């Protein structure tokens, strides 16, 4: 398998060399060709900077970036065969939708008839046939997003970069768009790299993902690996809001004296009588399909998911917790 994008010890520091802000710090990363890759992390974790390093809007202060094996350190954005769907879509307001989509072909000198036909094909691909004559201002947010997508795909890029592509859409539209993006990627076979702060989005769409924290990659793996076997406390907490248990609490749960992670959905509430694992209910959050019950156990807040239909205990009640011992994931981090 070829690597579509490779980061070799890449850093991007801002500010003076004496006290740099390390937006990206020593990142090693390989994105396989044809994969749907997610860069996940909180804001300021370096994920967007990494995307901009691939597109060429940022230059690395250290390390090397390769796209399909070629070093792009000295290649400006317009000569990189990668295209971006911008977070604010960045559609040109003075051009109609067709000219926006055809822009990439226009600057390459493709003749008007060919590029307009290609633009119409692209608009059909994103289900916007017949919208060519409209101005971006006349479109809804979801439609603008599709235009941005069509415009980025018209050049048949080797890698498509998506910067928080669904951030500005409402929940219903976002879910529909997730399915569509996934289907589109499978159909075109282009490598998609998308940046998001939404862990459920990353888990549901990506083939593999990198979790970013403070300019570094905390973990790379498939969604299932990252979810089930978080390597660090940060990953466990950020991806799926797991219960992160300190070494002392882990021991009480029957594990070794190490940090561990226990997913809320693996915990069951049982009557307290005689169990070692019993605590006081502090808060209950109703989430629709289930309720998230927080229990104070040995001074640590532990959350359990209670399926809808089961009677939730009152805050202040004493409850016992039971779980399958294999669900307890002990982390490498000491």
């Amino acid at each position, binding site marked *: 398998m070829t690597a579509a994008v490779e980061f070799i010890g890449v850093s991007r520091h801002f500010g003076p060399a004496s006290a740099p802000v390390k937006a990206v710090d020593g990142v090693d990363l390989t994105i396989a060709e044809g994969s749907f890759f997610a860069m996940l992390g909180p804001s300021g974790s370096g994920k967007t900077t990494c995307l901009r390093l691939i*597109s*060429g*809007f940022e230059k690395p202060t250290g390390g090397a970036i390769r796209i399909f094996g070629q070093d792009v350190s000295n290649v*400006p*954005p*317009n*000569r990189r065969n*990668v*295209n*971006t769907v*911008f*977070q*604010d879509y*960045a*559609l*040109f*307001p*003075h051009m109609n939708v067709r000219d926006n989509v055809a*822009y*990439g072909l*226009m*600057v*390459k000198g493709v003749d008007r008839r060919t590029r307009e036909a290609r633009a119409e094909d692209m608009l059909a691909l994103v289900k916007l046939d017949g919208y060519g004559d409209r101005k971006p201002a006349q479109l809804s947010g979801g439609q603008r997003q599709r235009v941005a997508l069509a*415009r*980025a795909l018209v*050049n048949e890029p080797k890698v498509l970069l998506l910067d928080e592509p669904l951030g500005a859409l409402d929940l219903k539209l976002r879910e529909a768009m997730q399915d569509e993006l996934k289907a589109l990627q499978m159909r075109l076979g282009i490598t998609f790299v998308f940046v998001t702060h939404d862990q459920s989005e990353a888990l549901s769409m990506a083939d593999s993902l990198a979790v970013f924290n403070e300019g570094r990659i905390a973990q790379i793996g498939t969604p299932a690996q990252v979810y089930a076997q978080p390597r660090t406390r940060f990953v466990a907490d950020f991806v799926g809001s797991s219960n992160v248990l300190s070494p002392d609490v882990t021991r009480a749960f029957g594990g070794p004296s190490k940090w561990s992670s226990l997913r809320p959905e693996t915990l069951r509430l049982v009557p307290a009588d005689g169990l070692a694992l019993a605590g006081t209910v502090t808060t209950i959050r109703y989430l629709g399909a289930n309720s998230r019950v927080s229990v104070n156990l040995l001074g640590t807040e532990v959350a359990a998911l209670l399926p809808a239909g089961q009677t939730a205990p009152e805050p202040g009640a004493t409850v016992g917790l039971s779980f399958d011992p294999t669900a307890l994931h002990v982390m490498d981090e000491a």
Partner: protein
Amino acid sequence: MTSAPAILPERGIADRLTAIFWRHPRLLLFVLLTPPLLWLGVVYLGSLLALLLQSFYSIDDFSGVVKEEFTLKTYAELFRAQNLDIILRTLLMSAAVTIGCAIIAFPIAYFAARFARGRWKAVFYLGVMLPLWSSYLVKVYAWKLILAKEGIITWAAEGVGLSMILNAILAIPGIGGNSLSTSPMGTFIVFVYVWLPYMILPMQASLERVPNSMLEASADLGASKAQTFRTVILPLAMPGMIAGSIFTFSLTMGDYIIPQIVGTSARFIGLAVYQLQGTAGNIPLAAAFAVVPIIIMLIYLTIAKRKGAFDAL
């Protein structure tokens, strides 16, 4: 629970007015707009109409008295060779000044909009506005000295051995002259200097509204810097450029002081109006002359609109 009432007590006239305006939202608009609209309607547009009316009168050739009868005779006079000359000269100068201003203003406005932050932004505004704080006459006379044969430009050109170039420019017929301060070139330089801020500021405002991601999108899609400039930046800056050009164009067409102080003392529309209504007492022709810039501006804006200059608005 607190014992505060659901409705707070009225605190006097200010609260009462707020309530009235809340119940009648249009009333506030009416109160705010009436005085300026009266001013604009009566004083401003009224006097413009009076001017238009005057231009349809004519002057009796023998007595020099204004005949208050409708005629197009005065407008016909505009087409006399000497008057056409004035109009053409003014038009060319205004166009040249506008283009000159646009070329100089663009890099400054671009820098201010894209790169200047914090203190540099303040420096920019100060630098652009500062010349506006001092008297226009002082600046024009200062330029007369700068451009004079004994002035600093001639002196500096001699000092660095560029007299040849200066003399070559002054030798160009139609542009040059005895010295910069007595040539159309000199008039042009002073016009550009005086009206430059009116071009920079609207241009900067329109460039400020172009998000960085739009330029990145252009580069991302394969455009070179020059292509991005031509197809994205320029069209998006166009409304600001047109706004600025309205200032530089109409200000140049109406000005009657600069051509008197710097240049060949050939007449411009402003100067013609000034002389016709003053010494000559030919108010109708002065009025007809004053209508010319209005018509030119209307034609200019119509063409600009047709060409899509306001598409990005």
